[in-house]
């Protein structure tokens, strides 16, 4: 495309020099970075960029969201589903501060994003100008890196660095704050150079064979080794390498919340989901294994429970790309500071072929106990519909092949437990930050990123209403995402804790909800509500068969609880299969 917002300066006997605005420079940089999709919301301080964008509609698809938080969660969903970097536009002041929740979420969950915010004119910085917020310092602890650009000539370098930083090392969100004068300023046309190195930034650690050999020695001598697989496997696209490693060594694999999907749930070495509401075997046997191998995970407190009671008998091997995660929570006997894919390839060579059938059988037996005491009752309930049976049906009807995007709370844990994932990048949720309101916009972004896949947002009635305005975006762009709300008219997980640990004092957790079906229909989205078990399967099938977006509300038991549960402050070995008798 020829420069659209150009000014031509002609001097005698000199070549014609084309100039373009900083705003157009930005868009050209994005095109050069192979960006196709942007989620955003315009405003005064970013108007030059939006004006330039008007002319780039053939190269950059921009989706106008209904709130900047919706934009950043959509970009997160897009990034997690596609493996690409999500891009967001927002204006200064409140536009930028509305991104903060998503930035914090993306930082802790290692999601690559590049967010562009407009800023007031450089000469107004620090004057409390209209919609001026110190965005750099506001977002500093919530970004992997951020930078303010006050001159158009600095835009290409900032964009190149931003994309490089977001997608390398431990991935994460980056923000570029561009003053309005820099967007308006004319500069000579330029040649974009992508960033390949930053002097002070060690993007990828070099695999150390001594570390690999030390880890392999522990693993080869182990009688009861156990792999905890985290999102690092997905981020480094190492699912095949994990499978090869597990199959050669015979080591059982459990997944963290964000690691779900990195190992097929129907694989004989898969032993379940870890953590506070994880499976019984993986939690109990953490305290019986002799070598614990954490890969691309960070020993989050929802995984470890009380650290003083966590795997004290085990020698811990930790593989992670982020050195700061090693020995942060759990002291290691050996570590490999490396990308998971490279580390697993090297370990597969260095480790002996082995089997651990008896050890895996222990997981199977404990998970059998969980089935008898918990799952069997969830799937064969009478009376109110259980969340578990909804997800069980969804899993069966989609053959575990949909992209499921959850919010935060009971429905999230139930989906993690009962949706039988088969493929990488098919489970998207807010993990470390636990952001209610994540699911609807994230699912929307995921569907934009992988339109060929069935994408289902599974949400509770509380979280749904936190970002429900994005139904407008879904309507406007006809995004055929499926929305499944499990409605118990409660903030269910908080209520569960109030029941179990606060004397059943339901302090401000019961919700009076609107007519969700009418609300969806107001946005021109087909909608239905299910209250009877006999209607459930066909209602889910109808939702899945819909060629357009579809909303399905399932009314579930008001006071259903999620078990197993590791109570707060307890060790993983203290996992409960049911509520204590007096609660």
């Amino acid at each position, binding site marked *: 495309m020829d420069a659209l917002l150009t000014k031509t300066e002609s001097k005698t006997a000199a070549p014609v020099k084309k100039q373009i605005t900083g705003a157009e420079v930005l868009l050209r940089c994005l095109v050069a970075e192979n960006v196709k999709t942007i989620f955003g919301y315009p405003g005064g301080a970013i108007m030059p960029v939006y004006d330039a964008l008007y002319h780039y509609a053939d190269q950059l698809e921009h989706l106008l969201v209904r709130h900047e938080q919706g934009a950043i969660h959509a970009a997160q969903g897009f990034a997690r589903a596609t493996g690409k970097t999500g891009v967001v536009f927002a204006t200064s002041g409140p536009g930028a501060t509305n991104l903060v929740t998503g930035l914090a979420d993306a930082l802790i969950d290692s999601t690559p994003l590049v967010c562009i915010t407009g800023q007031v004119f450089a000469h107004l910085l620090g004057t409390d100008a209209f919609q001026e917020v110190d965005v750099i310092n506001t977002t500093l602890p919530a970004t992997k890196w951020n930078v*303010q650009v006050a001159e158009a000539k600095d835009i290409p370098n900032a964009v190149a660095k931003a994309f490089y930083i977001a997608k390398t090392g431990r991935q994460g969100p980056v923000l570029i704050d561009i003053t309005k004068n820099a967007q308006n300023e004319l500069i000579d046309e330029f040649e974009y150079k992508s960033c390949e190195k930053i002097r*002070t930034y060690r993007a990828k650690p070099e695999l150390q064979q001594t570390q690999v050999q030390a880890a392999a020695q522990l693993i080869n001598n182990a009688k009861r080794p156990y792999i905890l697989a985290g999102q690092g496997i997905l981020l480094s696209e190492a699912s095949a390498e994990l499978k090869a490693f597990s199959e050669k060594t015979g080591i059982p694999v459990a997944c963290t919340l964000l690691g779900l999907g990195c190992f097929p749930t129907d694989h004989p070495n898969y032993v379940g989901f870890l953590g506070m509401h994880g499976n019984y075997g993986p939690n109990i046997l953490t305290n019986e294994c002799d070598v614990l191998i954490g890969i691309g995970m960070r020993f989050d407190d929802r995984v470890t429970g009380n650290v003083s009671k966590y795997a004290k008998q085990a020698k811990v091997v930790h593989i992670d790309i*982020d050195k*700061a995660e090693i020995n942060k929570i759990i002291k290691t006997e050996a570590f490999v500071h490396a990308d998971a894919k490279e580390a697993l390839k090297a370990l597969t060579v260095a480790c002996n072929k082995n089997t651990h059938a008896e050890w895996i059988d222990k997981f199977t037996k404990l998970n059998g106990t969980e089935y008898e005491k918990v799952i069997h009752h969830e799937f064969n309930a009478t009376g109110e519909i259980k969340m578990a049976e909804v997800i069980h049906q969804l899993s069966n009807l989609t053959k575990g092949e949909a992209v499921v995007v959850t919010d935060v709370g009971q429905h999230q844990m139930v989906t993690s437990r009962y949706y039988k994932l088969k493929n990488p990048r098919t489970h998207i949720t807010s993990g470390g930050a636990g952001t209610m309101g994540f699911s609807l916009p994230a699912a929307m972004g995921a569907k934009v990123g992988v339109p060929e896949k069935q994408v289902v947002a599974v949400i509770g009635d509380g979280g749904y209403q936190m970002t429900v305005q994005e139904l407008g975006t879904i309507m406007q762009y006809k995004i055929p995402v499926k929305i499944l709300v499990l409605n118990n008219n409660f903030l269910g997980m908080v209520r569960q804790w109030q029941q179990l640990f606060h004397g059943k004092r339901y302090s401000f957790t019961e919700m009076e909800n609107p007519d969700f079906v009418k609300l969806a229909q107001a946005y021109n989205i087909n909608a239905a509500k299910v209250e009877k078990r006999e209607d459930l399967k066909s209602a889910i099938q109808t939702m899945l068969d819909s060629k357009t977006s579809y909303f399905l509300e399932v009314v579930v038991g008001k006071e259903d609880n999620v078990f197993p549960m590791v109570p707060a402050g307890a060790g993983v070995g203290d996992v409960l299969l049911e509520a204590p008798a007096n609660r």
Partner: protein
Amino acid sequence: MKQDYTLELESDNNFSVLNRIINILNRRRVRIKKMMAHENESDFRRGGVIMLLHTTADMMDRVKDQLEKLIEVDKVAFYEGSGKYVDLIEQVVDVD
């Protein structure tokens, strides 16, 4: 057990880099007893920070790892006690 540590850090001299460094300490409630930040005499695009911190050995290890993750930070080292703090300050002052 908490004790004094001298932290020596070299970095690019960008806007907000000092805030990033302080943020890592503040977030972990690490006490800063003394601090000196400076541009390099030979190249204003580079700089450094010398700090006297009061915290635990375990926390110093964690803080070092976090500081090394900062994009602009080039080198981080720490030493037990406050003796090195005075030496490092004198070196910077001598150069200036």
